[in-house]
């Protein structure tokens, strides 16, 4: 439903989006992750036709957003980050106006507005002025606006930004419910909610796509797994066993009173290192008190591929400057 190929967007000297490519299939809920200023909103604005791409292509439901912008926009419902709604209109008036602007036929407009309000849960503020509703309701009015023409694709930019936990939970539930009928691209920098809602995530950082896949699969494939082992032996002996096991690299060690030791090791990608270590310790007659491989959380994974890449880039930059 959404296809992006080698998309770049430059603002003057700043390269906001750098040759990213991804696809979103029908019925998917895809989380678009990235730190603030990573290029999420710029990418979304290109997809919605608000900005033009500097190079590359983007298609929405088969329509190129540059050459068939109107047709592409007809397939989209868009919730911008700071939901801008006209404060002097009542919620229902605003949604009727938006439905009319989006070409919902006059006869269907009332039903379309009622359906969108029910989906977004804003019926109880229908007669209130948009300027008088709370921030949570404001987000939901924006969501109702995105839904009012019943588009097959929804693009939601930070839909839970600035909301309290209850409001966030409500919005997440609404987004989950939308999956049955819509394809959703959902941007956020709050990892837990993306993990909760999305079947797949895209991670963008400094304009580049850093990861694309199911959250659990990405974390599982990560080389950042940690092994914790505690055994009834000296620290030096345990370190020796761990270091001698292929695929393990000792990170830290500590005595474990009264007579044991514990070691934390990085596990290289691949299975079997923990099992091999356990078998070797048992064969040596050492009592194993703890042996566990810990997967990083999505947050740790995100931190590693964003902050970590920053450090690598800084190092590379420093080396380049030193060479110069």
């Amino acid at each position, binding site marked *: 439903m959404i296809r992006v190929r080698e998309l770049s967007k430059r603002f003057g000297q700043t390269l906001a989006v750098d040759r990213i490519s991804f696809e979103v299939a029908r019925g998917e809920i895809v989380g678009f992750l990235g730190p603030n200023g990573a290029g999420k909103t710029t990418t979304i604005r290109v997809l919605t036709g608000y900005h033009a791409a500097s190079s590359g292509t983007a298609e929405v439901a088969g329509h190129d957003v540059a050459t068939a912008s109107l047709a592409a926009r007809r397939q989209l419902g868009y919730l911008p980050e700071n939901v801008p709604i006209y404060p002097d209109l009542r919620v229902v008036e605003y949604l009727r106006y938006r439905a*009319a602007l989006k070409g919902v036929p006059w006869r269907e407009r009332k039903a379309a507005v009622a359906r969108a309000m029910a989906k977004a849960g804003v019926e109880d503020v229908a007669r209130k002025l948009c300027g008088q509703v709370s921030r949570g309701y404001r987000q939901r009015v924006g969501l109702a606006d995105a839904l009012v023409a019943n588009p097959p694709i929804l693009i939601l930019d930070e839909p839970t930004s600035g909301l309290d936990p209850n409001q966030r939970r409500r919005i997440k539930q609404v987004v989950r419910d939308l999956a049955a009928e819509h394809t959703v691209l959902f941007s956020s920098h709050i990892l837990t909610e993306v993990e909760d809602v999305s079947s797949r995530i895209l991670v963008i950082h400094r304009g580049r796509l850093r990861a694309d896949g199911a959250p659990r699969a990405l974390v599982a494939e990560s080389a950042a797994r940690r092994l914790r082992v505690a055994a009834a032996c000296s620290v030096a002996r345990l370190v020796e066993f761990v270091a001698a096991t292929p695929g393990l690299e000792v990170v830290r060690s500590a005595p474990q009173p009264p007579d044991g030791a514990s070691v934390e090791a990085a596990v290289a990608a691949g299975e079997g290192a923990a099992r091999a270590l356990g078998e070797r310790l048992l064969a040596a007659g050492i009592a194993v008190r703890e042996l566990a491989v810990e997967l990083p959380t999505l947050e740790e994974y995100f931190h590693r591929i964003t902050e970590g890449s920053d450090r690598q880039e800084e190092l590379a930059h420093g080396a380049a400057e030193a060479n110069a």
Partner: protein
Amino acid sequence: MSGAWVTFQKELLSYCTSPVSWFIGFVFYLWRGLQMYGTAWSFALYRGDQDLFAPSTYGLQSTFLMVMLVPGVLTMRCFAEERRTGSIETLMTAPVRDGEVVFGKWAAATAFFGLLWLPSVLVLQVLELPWFFDADLAFGPVFAAYLGMFLLSGLMLAFGCFASSLTDNVLLAAVLAMLFNFGLLSVPGQLRFYLGEHAENYYVRELLDKFDVMRNFGDWFARGLIDSSQVAFYAGGILFFLGLTTVSLSSRRIA
């Protein structure tokens, strides 16, 4: 054109429900009423040419200020406010052409400006009452003057839309529009004065003649004459500025 129609309806409703619009109307008619009262008495006293009564009322200060100041106030929010609040993003990502949005907003501003002028027709009707002045106002000059006023304000409102599309500061948009309106009303006459005999050069004269709105208004519309070249001048100016506004809005889509 459904996008233009929807935009027109929404904008006209906004104007009609805005306290600023009613304040403008109130001040304008209070001032204008006082001026009309004075003008009408002087005509009655001196048995003035009643056919010229209607056109002469367009030379009132209230008319001048209404035409110079109010279009800028009406259009200042058109796009500047949408930019400031961010609603420009939802507007421009809706499946509607930029040109339709521009036309809808301009048409609503022009229609509301027309609504502000409408009660002034009633004033003329009152003057015709037998127990009041029993004036016999000619329909032609009145109609032509109103048409001229409509075209002139349409041009100024089109520029106001353009000014509003350039900034997110509504006051700056209003000031830009007022400066343009002031320039349009006064610069050609001033230039003619300062250029002296150089103004008699064929090209300079033609240019000044075309752009001297005040003189053309008095020579044509106020006398009940509708000249097609004048109508084309205003219509062309309106289309030019609406086109510029559309380009200004669409420029963000330029890679």
